[in-house]
């Protein structure tokens, strides 16, 4: 293999080699190479196939704007990153890269038949072709398209790397470490303010990396950049972040940066995060993001070996790599001459410079002539030859005439430079159109940011440095600092950026049947854009979506302006009237890993466990997730399935007793002289007359009259209520209470405190409940006379202070022992020891649900869905009829809420007692009616009830309370189930058991 690495050119150390593979082929590069420079050094330009036509593609650029050279980089089975731009992937020893979008091989790709079918794959192809028949979409078109589409292959194993996340604050954030960014950072840093400077490349220097003709402060531009970066890095108030992309500019100067920490390392320390996401909040942002060179739009401009002129200079001047031996240049501006001159000096033959301009003038043009390079002004490249690599260019006068075939093995193109206004635009700044240069520049700003240098349209080095120093000083003064402006940066440059064009070059006008690519990655040609306009697309946003121009992973960094220029020309309207597509974050693709950071797996969401969780674990409980809580679902014993375990638990509770961990209930302490009055306003029930030591079941409504939450409330003192809420409603209820207390009823002297996690709650339910707890409780008379159902006492249990509630969610005699959370497990164990002696069991949430359903007790969120009133639930008794105000009092009177025909809570008994209904099943009156049937209700809860010896269900049924005893039907996919409407109470209808 002949090497294209030149001796004594570039900045890499020829003795430091790095081995790598491309599609399994073993190759050698140098430390400091990118994958792209190393491939070119090995003479490889063909690196991928295009997305739609599978055309052979090479390396277009030397930076993050790269549309073509996307490869997979594989470290191991789990670390296979698709769509890595070879131009930004730093080479490391052992790197393994594979080409994408080709089968069976890169050089011979079956998918390239799409190229032959190109006339059929025109813009809007998918929209038009895959419309009919409808069924074919699901079974034929979509699977086929999905199979064919997509770039690269995602790894199948989960990501083994970790990702870090950091917040940072600074006075001045400088984005971009080229001449402008370094000068601005120096000026800002000198003041002592906190400065962060980030750049997406491995080192700082920006365009000085390739601009051989620039001198700053008496030294070569690149050397000045390295010295300046080193000086900044040594300052305490400066943080320099290389390999760090500012990908998003958000509100109030928050800029998202992603730092690639290990992507360039051969054997990364596993302790290091792969990437680090920086959330930077900056008082001032200096945007110095430079400009991106545009390619020329002409026939067959996509062959491997055709690349941006600046990219060739990168590869030559930095990496010491020649992109070819016989190089053509096709340009419409001066900067490409620099590439010709640099290559010429390095001994590479320049076949010709083809300049669209009739009479370009200036030092660089003179220098090219002086070097003896053939200069064809007023000429264009009509087409190119070659299959897997460009082999020739056909040159002709742009006005027409005979064409001449010039052999080349690389063709450098430059249509001018597009200022990188991405971040400025993301900051919601307005773009202004420069009519003379036909480019968009930063206009009115929306946030505290300053654009400088090439991204601001500033072309000369001297002006850029002046602008940068001024911006650094301005940023410092803007945050109240003192800018001394002691830095001056004299400069000299032979570079020139004069000239430029956008849109299609002569011979590739939209009417011509040639493939002149505008957007390489999505295979959009000038003809496609012309077609979009002909078919009625007028706004660039429509053109974009119809042609997919600018929609690929490179987001049209090289193609947007060309596409706009072509549309604008056909429409006969100036570019600003056709519009520029919106720039959105991220600037370059960001991994999900970086965004998610540590928040995955066990750290995705907190897991809440009760103080008695370990007991349930030891007993082999099966857990269910209830919000963030882990709750014991049931406690299977040897040989039991869920059904058997729940049946046993249900039976045991009613025959002896059961213990249930109710710690997850929300608990709020409502305290203060006006506590009772506040409770009157928050709940439908009357509270003022509730005696100290008594409890009441409370219902909370929203202002619209619908049930929001419920729970038992105990009055501990005149001015103190212990309120319980549903497990899921705890935070919502406190928020609701705080809202009213702070904003509607601020005159009330009340404090609200969440005590959900302060109290562990052990429910002991069943005929033997009192016998179980009695030996452990002190200071409380547990007799029915002294402590009847729905009362609360304070005393001790095992010497631990307790709030002991006599209450029941099972219909049995029951207690709920509240103890400080730290004592939860020890008290539970003591009660458990007593319980076992009485033949009791531990039961889980499933048994709790069954037992309460046997009693017709509702669960908010199961029997209610935010459109259910207390009346619908048969809970009118819980509304204080004499009250003049409570939240929801007016909502309850709304016409729809008092009208007949509302769904009401009823019980359902299946005619076949063994059939357990499905929750959510719909109820109809007549199963023979045509579909769609009139649905008059639905099942909200349904269980097998061991205690009733049959299935039971609760339902919400239209006018249900007037349908008692009626037969209704539930049509299911395989059968229709007959049910009888009953009372929602299935067990102990008189409610005698709670009293013991």
């Amino acid at each position, binding site marked *: 293999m002949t090497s294209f690495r030149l001796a004594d050119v570039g900045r890499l150390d020829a003795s430091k080699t790095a081995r790598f593979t491309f599609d399994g082929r073993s190759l050698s590069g140098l430390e400091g190479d990118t994958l792209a420079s190393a491939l070119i050094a090995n003479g490889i330009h063909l690196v991928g196939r295009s997305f739609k036509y599978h055309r052979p593609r090479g390396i277009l650029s030397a930076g993050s704007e790269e549309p073509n050279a996307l490869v997979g980089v594989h470290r191991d089975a789990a670390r296979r990153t698709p769509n890595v731009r070879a131009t930004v992937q730093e080479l490391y020893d052992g790197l393994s890269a594979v080409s994408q979008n080709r089968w069976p091989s890169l050089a011979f790709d079956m998918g390239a038949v799409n190229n032959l079918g190109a006339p059929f794959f025109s813009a809007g192809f998918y929209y038009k072709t895959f419309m009919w028949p409808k069924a074919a979409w699901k079974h034929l078109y979509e699977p086929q398209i999905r199979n064919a589409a997509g770039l690269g292959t995602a790894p199948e194993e989960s990501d083994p790397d970790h990702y870090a996340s950091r917040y940072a604050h600074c006075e001045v954030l400088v984005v971009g470490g080229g001449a402008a960014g370094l000068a601005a950072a120096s000026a800002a840093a000198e003041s002592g303010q906190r400065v962060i400077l980030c750049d997406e490349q491995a080192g700082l220097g920006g365009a000085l990396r390739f601009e051989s003709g620039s001198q700053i402060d008496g030294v070569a531009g690149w050397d000045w950049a390295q010295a300046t970066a080193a000086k900044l890095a040594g300052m305490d108030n400066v943080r320099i972040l290389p390999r760090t992309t500012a990908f998003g500019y958000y509100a109030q100067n*928050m800029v998202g940066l992603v730092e690639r920490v290990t992507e360039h390392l051969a054997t990364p320390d596993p302790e290091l995060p792969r990437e680090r996401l920086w959330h930077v909040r900056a008082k001032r942002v200096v945007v110095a993001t430079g400009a991106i060179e545009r390619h020329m739009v002409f026939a067959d401009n996509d062959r491997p070996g055709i690349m941006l002129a600046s990219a060739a200079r990168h590869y030559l001047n930095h990496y010491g790599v020649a992109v070819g031996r016989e190089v053509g240049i096709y340009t419409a501006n001066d900067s490409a001459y620099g590439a010709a001159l640099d290559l010429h000096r390095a001994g590479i033959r320049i076949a010709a410079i083809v300049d669209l301009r009739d009479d370009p003038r200036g030092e660089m043009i003179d220098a090219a002539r002086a070097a003896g390079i053939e200069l064809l002004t007023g000429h264009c490249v009509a087409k190119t030859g070659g299959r897997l690599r460009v082999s020739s260019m056909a040159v002709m006068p742009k006005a027409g005439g005979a064409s001449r075939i010039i052999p080349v093995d690389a063709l450098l193109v430059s249509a001018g430079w597009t200022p990188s206004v991405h971040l400025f635009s993301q900051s919601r700044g307005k773009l202004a159109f420069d009519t003379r240069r036909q480019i968009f520049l930063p206009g009115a700003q929306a946030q505290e940011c300053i654009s400088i240098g090439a991204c601001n349209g500033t072309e000369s080095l001297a002006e850029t440095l002046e602008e940068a120093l001024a911006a650094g000083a301005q940023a410092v003064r803007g945050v109240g600092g003192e800018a001394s402006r002691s830095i001056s940066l004299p400069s000299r440059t032979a570079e020139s950026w004069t000239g430029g064009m956008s849109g299609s070059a002569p011979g590739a006008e939209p009417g011509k049947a040639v493939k002149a690519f505008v957007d390489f990655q999505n295979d959009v040609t000038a003809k496609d854009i012309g077609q979009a306009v002909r078919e009625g697309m007028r706004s660039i946003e429509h053109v974009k979506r119809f042609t997919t121009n600018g929609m690929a992973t490179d987001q049209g960094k090289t193609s947007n302006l060309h596409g706009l220029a072509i549309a604008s020309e056909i429409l006969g309207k100036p570019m600003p009237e056709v519009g520029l597509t919106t720039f959105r974050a991220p600037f370059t693709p960001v991994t999900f890993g970086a965004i998610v950071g540590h928040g995955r797996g066990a750290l995705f969401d907190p897991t809440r466990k009760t103080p008695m969780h370990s007991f349930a674990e030891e007993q082999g409980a099966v857990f269910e997730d209830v919000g963030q809580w882990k709750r014991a679902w049931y406690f299977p014993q040897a040989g039991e399935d869920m059904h058997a375990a729940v049946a046993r638990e249900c039976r045991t509770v009613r025959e002896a007793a059961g213990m249930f961990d109710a710690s997850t209930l929300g608990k709020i302490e409502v305290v203060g002289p006006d506590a009772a009055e506040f409770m009157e306003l928050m709940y439908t029930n009357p509270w003022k007359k509730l005696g100290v030591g008594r409890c009441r079941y409370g219902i909370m409504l929203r202002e619209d009259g619908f049930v929001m939450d419920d729970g038992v409330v105990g009055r501990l003192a005149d001015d103190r209520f212990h309120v319980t809420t549903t497990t899921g409603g705890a935070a919502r209820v406190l928020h609701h209470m*705080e809202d009213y207390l*702070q*904003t509607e009823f*601020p005159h009330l002297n009340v404090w609200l405190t969440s005590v959900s996690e302060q109290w562990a709650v052990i429910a002991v339910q069943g005929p033997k409940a009192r016998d179980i707890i009695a030996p452990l409780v002190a200071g409380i008379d547990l007799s029915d006379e002294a402590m009847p159902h729905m009362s609360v006492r304070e005393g001790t249990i095992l010497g631990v202070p307790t709030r002991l509630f006599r209450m029941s969610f099972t219909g049995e005699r029951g207690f709920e022992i509240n103890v400080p959370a730290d004592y939860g497990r020890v008290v539970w164990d003591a009660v458990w020891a007593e319980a076992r002696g009485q033949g009791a069991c531990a039961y889980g949430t499933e048994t709790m649900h069954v037992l309460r359903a046997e009693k017709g007790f509702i669960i908010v969120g199961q029997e209610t869905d935010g459109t259910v009133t207390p009346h619908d639930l048969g809970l009118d008794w819980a509304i204080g009829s004499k009250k003049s105000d409570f939240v929801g*009092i*007016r909502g309850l*009177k*709304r016409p729809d809420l008092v009208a007949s025909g509302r769904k009401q809570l009823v019980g359902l008994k299946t005619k076949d007692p063994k059939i357990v209904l499905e929750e959510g099943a719909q109820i109809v009156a007549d199963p023979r009616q045509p579909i769609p049937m009139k649905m008059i209700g639905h099942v909200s809860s349904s269980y097998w009830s061991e205690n009733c010896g049959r299935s039971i269900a609760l339902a919400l049924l239209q006018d249900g309370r007037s349908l008692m005893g009626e037969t209704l039907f539930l049509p299911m996919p395989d059968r229709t189930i007959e049910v009888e409407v009953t009372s929602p109470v299935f067990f102990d209808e008189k409610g005698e058991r709670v009293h013991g």
Partner: protein
Amino acid sequence: MLLIRCPYCQEERPELEFRHAGEAHVVRPHNIADISDEEFEAFFFHRANPKGITHERWRHVHGCGRFFNAVRDTVSDRFVTTYKAGEPKPALEEHKA
């Protein structure tokens, strides 16, 4: 992420600490039980949803826990000012620039 100034803490804090709580200056009638259907409809259901300056409630839920009011521009997302619950709408002329 927005920065929001809590008028109680007197500090600018990140949006994550706050929770939006709907339109501000919607006063619950003292005689709410007696108002007409139309009055209840206007109080409970109708909201201004303007394009531009809006008055809205926020709660510093992961901070001091207080509800307060904010003036925000719904177009730019810019917070013009924040003020304590119960205080009148601030005069806006001074903030328009």
